[in-house]
């Protein structure tokens, strides 16, 4: 590296090298063939997304896209959806910059400027946020550009501007949390805010759609004549980002300048406090949490019960898990609301809630299973205990199963009030979906500390993808069974194939 040490560009090059090697390791696991195969699969998936976007937007594009109010409302609404996801992701990444201790101790104890480190890490967060948003939005943007002209490529500039703005807001929110609630609570609060921001808009417009139109289509609100009539006129400043995305270059440049200008200003104003906040965050790990002194005597318990109780205690005291469970419950809010609104109507109207419940069960079970099965902080203790590995696994699976059952039981009871038959079907698929996710975590178990939860998704790409695919397939099968469709067998078979492939690829026989 020929850059002058400890300068902004030197830190940027250092961060880039680390990020690149990390990404390569995650994608290829050191195997070139695996990297090529994975790249091929992702490329196919990306092409598939373009085809899907094309099919989805074909009627809209065929009707002609003009700069009318209806189009501006749809583009702004969709853009806002993307932006909430960007803001959510940026908030999580910025918080991590303060709490991650990997090399921060080294850098903060060196004579190098911590403000420069902060500037580079915040910029890297903005870059990653923009990159992800561009990847997610690219099937839509590229399809529009292909059909309606390259002017739509200006949307990438708008995404970049809003990505920078999301990073800037995230920095301000994090520093605000540090000052108001202190470093001990900032991380959890930021996680919860990130979750609510990420899901809030989707859930909000879904709730409005359910209450106003009786369906769960989030675009029902944006496309309703009442909403469009009530929206500001075409010349209003609120439509500037939409006009920019639709190819108005001057507006696009203004959005980019505003976004990056705000980010630069925020970095300049706040970078001096970075070291102070990061050091305060470091002190959190040394903070002791006082439990209420227990007066109850030790309870006689079987080995399996001792393991279950331990898992429940740890799950209950895990702030990350609490925020994630809250998110799952938030996502269950629209279907629950839909059930409540549709109560008493024909059972067919609320068949749509089933896949949401089944998918949520699979995802939650996957997370809980990882924590219970792989995330064992005292792995050596459990392995050296006089209990068979099989009994340990059974106890952990029981702990997960009971936790999932406790979370989903109220939703299933609500569903049973509306339709007993649908409740049974949903319960069966919740069990299968949760069971599949648990089985995948079991096959791919690798002892890690619970604090490494974030690495769970990169520890095994096969496990992560299989878990997501099986949840989706079981959700599809559930909704088709509920609708008495014989084609339900197809997603069910695909789910079984996914499980079989995952089992075949799992590292069997390599553990004690």
């Amino acid at each position, binding site marked *: 590296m020929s850059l002058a040490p400890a300068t902004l560009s030197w830190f940027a090059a250092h961060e880039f090298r680390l990020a690149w090697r990390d990404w390569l390791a995650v994608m290829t696991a050191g195997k070139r063939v695996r990297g090529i195969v994975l790249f091929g699969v992702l490329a196919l998936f990306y092409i598939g997304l373009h085809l899907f976007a094309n099919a989805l937007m074909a009627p809209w594009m065929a009707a002609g896209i003009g700069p009318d109010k209806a189009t501006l409302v749809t583009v702004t609404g969709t853009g806002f959806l993307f932006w909430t996801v960007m803001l959510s992701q940026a908030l999580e990444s910025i918080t991590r910059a303060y709490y991650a201790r990997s090399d921060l101790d080294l850098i903060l104890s060196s004579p190098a400027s911590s403000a420069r480190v902060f500037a580079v890490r915040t910029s890297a967060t903005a870059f990653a946020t923009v990159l992800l948003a561009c990847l997610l939005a690219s099937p839509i943007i590229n399809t529009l550009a292909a059909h309606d002209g390259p002017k739509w490529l200006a949307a990438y500039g708008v995404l970049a501007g809003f990505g920078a703005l999301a990073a800037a807001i995230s920095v301000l929110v994090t520093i605000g949390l540090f000052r108001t609630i202190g470093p001990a609570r900032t991380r959890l609060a930021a996680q919860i805010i990130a979750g609510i921001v990420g899901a809030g808009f989707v859930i909000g417009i879904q709730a409005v759609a359910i209450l106003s139109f009786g369906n769960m289509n989030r675009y029902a609100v944006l496309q309703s004549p009442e909403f469009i009539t009530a929206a500001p006129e075409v010349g209003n400043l609120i439509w500037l980002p939409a006009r920019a995305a639709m190819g108005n270059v001057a507006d696009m440049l203004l959005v980019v300048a505003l976004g990056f200008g705000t980010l630069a200003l925020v970095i300049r104003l706040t970078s001096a406090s970075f070291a102070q906040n990061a050091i305060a965050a470091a002190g959190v*790990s*040394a*903070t*002791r*949490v*006082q*439990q*209420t*002194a*227990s007066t109850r*005597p*030790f*309870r*006689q*318990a*079987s*080995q399996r*019960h*001792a*393991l279950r*109780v*331990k898992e429940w*205690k*740890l799950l209950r*005291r*895990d702030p990350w898990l609490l925020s994630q469970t809250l998110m799952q419950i938030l996502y269950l809010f629209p279907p629950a609301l839909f059930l409540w609104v549709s109560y008493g109507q024909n059972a067919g109207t609320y068949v749509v809630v089933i896949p949401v419940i089944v998918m949520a069960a699979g995802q939650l079970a996957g997370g809980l299973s990882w924590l219970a099965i792989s995330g064992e*902080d*005292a*792995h*050596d*203790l*459990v*392995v*050296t*205990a*006089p*209990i*068979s590995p099989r009994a340990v696994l059974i106890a952990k699976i029981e702990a997960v199963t009971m936790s999932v059952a406790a979370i989903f039981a109220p939703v299933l009871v609500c569903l049973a009030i509306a339709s007993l038959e649908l409740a049974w079907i949903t319960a069966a698929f919740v069990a299968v979906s949760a069971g599949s996710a648990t089985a995948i975590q079991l096959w791919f178990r690798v002892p890690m500390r*619970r*604090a490494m939860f974030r690495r769970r998704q990169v520890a095994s790409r096969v496990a992560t993808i299989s878990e997501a695919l099986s949840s989706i397939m079981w959700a599809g099968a559930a909704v088709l069974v509920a609708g008495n469709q014989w084609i339900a067998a197809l997603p069910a078979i695909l789910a079984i194939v996914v499980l079989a492939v995952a089992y075949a690829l799992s590292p069997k026989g390599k553990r*004690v």
Partner: protein
Amino acid sequence: MSNSQFALDISGLRKSFDRPVVIDLELKVKAGEFYALLGPNGAGKTTILRMVAGLLRQDAGSISVLGIDTARDPIAARQIVAWVSDEPMVYDRLTPLEYLEFVAGLWRIDAREAERHSNELIDWLGLRPHANERCGGFSKGMLQKVALAGALVHDPRLIILDEPLTGLDAGSARQVKDVLKQKVASGVTVIMTTHILEVAERMAERIGVINHGRLVAEGTLAELRTRIGRETTLEEIFLDLVAQKEADLATEAAA
């Protein structure tokens, strides 16, 4: 339980990863003995002890704990063995008392007896003021003491410790050493690896030196001194033995 005179009897033990790590190891530790296993970094000490504790499978050979073959009856062997690693195995979100209740549950100890013993250990190791604090904010020394309490709560007959004094302050190290001495006095066998040779010199009845996966010397301190032919410290003996082994290997390689 067998009344074997050996707390640990290892015969023909072999283990390889990408290279041989333990080679045809023969090791016998008498019941009620304090045995120190020494060796340079990467000599194979931890691998040997992890195989004894059941955390690794051997490629060949046998391990017997108080007459119980660990491969044939691992559960019975684990019932009487305790393992304390250099990285304390403790849950951040449990208090020391909750942790000990959990360990007692795993080893199927009577709840009342476990509670009494846990409180005794908590006092013994100076953990009383922190008994109801979650372990998450504890120092390395405090975590090591909680882990040690966990290892002792089920009254093991053989305690295996891998570098238990690393990172402990003088006071904590003294407490741990006192506890181990008392355990040996009550007939428990202790096998410990350490790089702090003064500890081995003062506490161990017999010392084994491992290098390149082989036991290169074994005996009391006096026997080891006799072997190298001069009255010196354990540190000098250790460095001599390791250097001698390195020279032998270099000669073998040259031949």
